[in-house]
């Protein structure tokens, strides 16, 4: 592929993600509306689609206030990290056999794990630089949560890697032509989903924000555009995790059930479905307590993940022998 093609795909992807994240605000509110016996935003334009633009205009034109007590430089840097990290990780996600930035990269999955763990800096620095107590508590929660869930987020994917024999995401997709990894790696899928929730701070694992406890958590002091960047970062994170679940466990752009090939369409549909799952989880579950979440991570999920890797490895070795 030429440099021009790469740039076009990258540019297109960036645009699509930013737009997608903005649209997701509306989609989420409409979906929540349906599940909660109410309308959601349905006034602006047909189906309320115009809400996307209204929201964007609102959030970008609001007073962007930096508290006088905050550490200015770091305060501004934190939301930039949040958004950049979420966008950068997308480089390795294949939207189709050729439609990707670096999906054939042989360390693709490792790259994703490395980049996504940078995300904690955004939260940590944002909370720290705000010099506000709620923000600090949120930042502390975020770092503890991310460290806990980082560990087995990576490990939960090792089964997939072992089955595919590659870290490159395009190879992983190709390896699922016969059977989606969701079947042999069901446990890995569940664990990755939980870790993904923790990683994107989505309810029920939104403890760093936990509005009922910490008002807004790490972003309590943020407003306007900078808050918008955290916001978009979170939604891009949701798209990213959904896209990865699709890629790693549900055959990525491959067509299901022998239906005609249409890579981008299938990828988008599957990803959209998992985004819906994220919203549904938010609509239906309460939030665990911080220490319960830690305990669950270290005492339940980590051993399960290790067992999953061991069993998968044993089966592969047994099969080869």
């Amino acid at each position, binding site marked *: 592929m030429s440099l021009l093609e790469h740039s076009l795909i990258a540019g297109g992807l960036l645009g699509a993600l930013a737009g997608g994240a903005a649209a997701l605000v509306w989609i989420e509110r409409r979906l929540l509306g349906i599940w909660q016996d109410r309308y959601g935003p349905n006034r602006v334009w047909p189906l309320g689609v115009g809400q996307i633009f209204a929201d964007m205009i609102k959030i970008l034109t609001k007073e962007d206030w930096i508290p006088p007590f905050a550490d200015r430089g770091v305060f501004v840097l934190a939301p930039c990290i949040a958004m950049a990290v979420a966008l950068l990780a997308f480089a390795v996600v294949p939207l189709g056999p050729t439609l990707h930035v670096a999906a054939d990269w042989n360390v693709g999955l490792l790259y994703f794990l490395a980049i996504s763990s940078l995300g904690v800096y955004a939260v940590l620095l944002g909370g720290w630089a705000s010099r506000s107590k709620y923000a600090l508590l949120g930042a502390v929660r975020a770092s503890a949560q991310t460290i806990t869930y980082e560990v087995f987020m990576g490990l939960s994917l090792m089964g997939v890697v072992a089955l595919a024999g590659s870290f490159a995401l395009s190879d992983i997709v190709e390896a699922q032509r016969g059977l989606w990894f969701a079947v042999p790696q069901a446990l890995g899928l569940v664990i990755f989903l939980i870790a993904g929730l923790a990683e994107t701070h989505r309810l029920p694992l939104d403890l760093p924000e936990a509005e009922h406890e910490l008002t807004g958590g790490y972003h309590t002091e943020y407003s306007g555009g900078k808050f918008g960047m955290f916001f978009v970062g979170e939604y891009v994170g949701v798209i990213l995790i959904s896209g990865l679940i699709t890629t790693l466990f549900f055959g990525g752009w491959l067509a299901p059930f022998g239906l005609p090939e249409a890579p981008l369409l299938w990828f988008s549909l599957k990803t959209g479905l998992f985004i819906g799952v994220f919203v549904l989880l938010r609509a239906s579950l309460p*939030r665990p307590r911080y220490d319960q979440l830690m305990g669950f991570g270290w005492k339940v999920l980590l051993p399960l993940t290790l067992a999953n890797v061991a069993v998968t490895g044993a089966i592969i070795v047994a099969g080869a022998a």
Partner: protein
Amino acid sequence: MTAAVAAAPSASLIEALRARCAGQELVEERTADGMPTLWVPAGALRGLMRWLKAEASPRFEMLYDLYAVDERQRSRRAPGLPAADFSVVYQLLSVRGNADLRLKVALRGEYPHCPSLCEVWANASWYEREAWDLFGVVFDDHPHLVRIMMPRTWEGHPLRKDHPARATEFERFQLDEARAQREQEALRIDPEEWGMSPQGEDHDYMILNLGPNHPSVHGVFRVMLQLDGEEIVEAVPDIGYHHRGAEKMGERQSWHSYIPYTDRVDYLGGVMNNLPYVMALERLAGIEVPPRAQTIRVMLCEFFRITSHLLFYGTFVQDVGAMSPIFYMFVDRQKAYDVIEAICGFRMHPAWFRIGGVAHDLPRGWQQLVRDFVDWMPRRLDDYEKMALKNRMLQKRAIGVGAYDTATALEWGVTGPGLRATGCDFDLRKARPYSGYQHFDFEVPTATGGDVYDRCVVRVEEMRQSLRIIRQCLEHMPEGDYKARHPLTTPPIKDHTMRDIDTLIHHFLSVSWGPVMPAGESSAMVEATKGLNSYTLSSDGGTMSYRTRIRTPSFPHLQMIPAISRGLMVPDLIAIIASIDFVMADVDR
């Protein structure tokens, strides 16, 4: 009187009290509510109270209420009572003996002194601070006698008779830069003052101000926290941000026109708030409420119990992080409000009860509306049980958190579902049936754990019982008047006004000035949505109250937050706050 009051004053108890303060005189006062009322000397107070709490028969476990009265402008004081500039009134409740006792202490002087009861009852502290704040009564040996309702910068004691009540009697209020600065400074907390220390032995603590504006404090309420990480070392609740002087307004409104104010005390309780007020007045005036009016009152009260509990249910589940159930519950609440609106013409604050009855008869077709609701609701409650109460994550957040036993609850003055969750089945509707509750078949739900979860379970079960009561109202609504035929009811009877000049005069005066209540004192207690709510009204024989005391359940409930949240984490505190189910207007009045 149809409404039953506390068990008859036991003569032996009064004799025993007399014997205990030999040489000093105990004066018995007759009140319209029939509650044994004794004036005791201040010196003997603490000893008597200790005895009443620990040894008397029956034992009075709970300091139910404590308030002051400015006696200086009374014109019709019963003869024989000790001379007083101020009096402090203690109302004790014996849950086991199902009895009440009211003790009064006469005080003289501009800033009279009274012994503090903080070492006898834990919940005396806030009540005494309130009496100091609003009346200027000094409680000796109180550990921290500071203002509780009014801002620190306030001058004077607003519930005194000589303190102005209207804006026009004050200087014009101006908030200039300097004053704003001063008020801001006064809001700053000094942790040391509250026994919190930011410095530990080897590490510092975080002092966190949770509130007055916070998503989970249900109004304007502040809890100052001393945190070790996220663990609560010390918590200090701070109230008063919602104080509107409801008791003072009672002294400025006619007996009738005060009814709408009561609606707004526990603003989720609607007409439930009217009930103790009008019942106290009916006792004072000797009005017999017709059975139909009583049954209508019961039905409406139970409707409001359901709407209030539904809001509790939704916000509780929301505060532990589940966002959806509250929306479903608001739909149901709206259905209940549709019925309430059809009957009362208003939703949240109908102000619909009247002295002697209710404002109107039930509208045509009310049966169908009520039936639709009682048929609809049980299935929804089943759904919520699956959605919320049976959710493992919610159970993990709630079971065993913020638990207390019956003795602790009584010590702190906890009533209502918070008390019944500890296994004590004290429900005033059963213990002392009022407004005809004795005719209804229902159960008093209890639980045993006394934790956050059990408080929720009890309320959910109460909603089912309320539905049962409403169904019985529907099926057995008596015929007859919806308001008593008594000259002191409002609006007064108009039947003969155009034929009889005497009736016309009385009607005219009763409408223009409002009814004149006979001098005396009366109180009424109800099992409100959040616990025991009572109004104590003193009449000096006028068109307005001399003193209106509103005892609300939420006030003591908040006071016990520190006792049950030490050593827990911030999210637990949020769950505890949600499980208490309070309304700040009900706390501050």
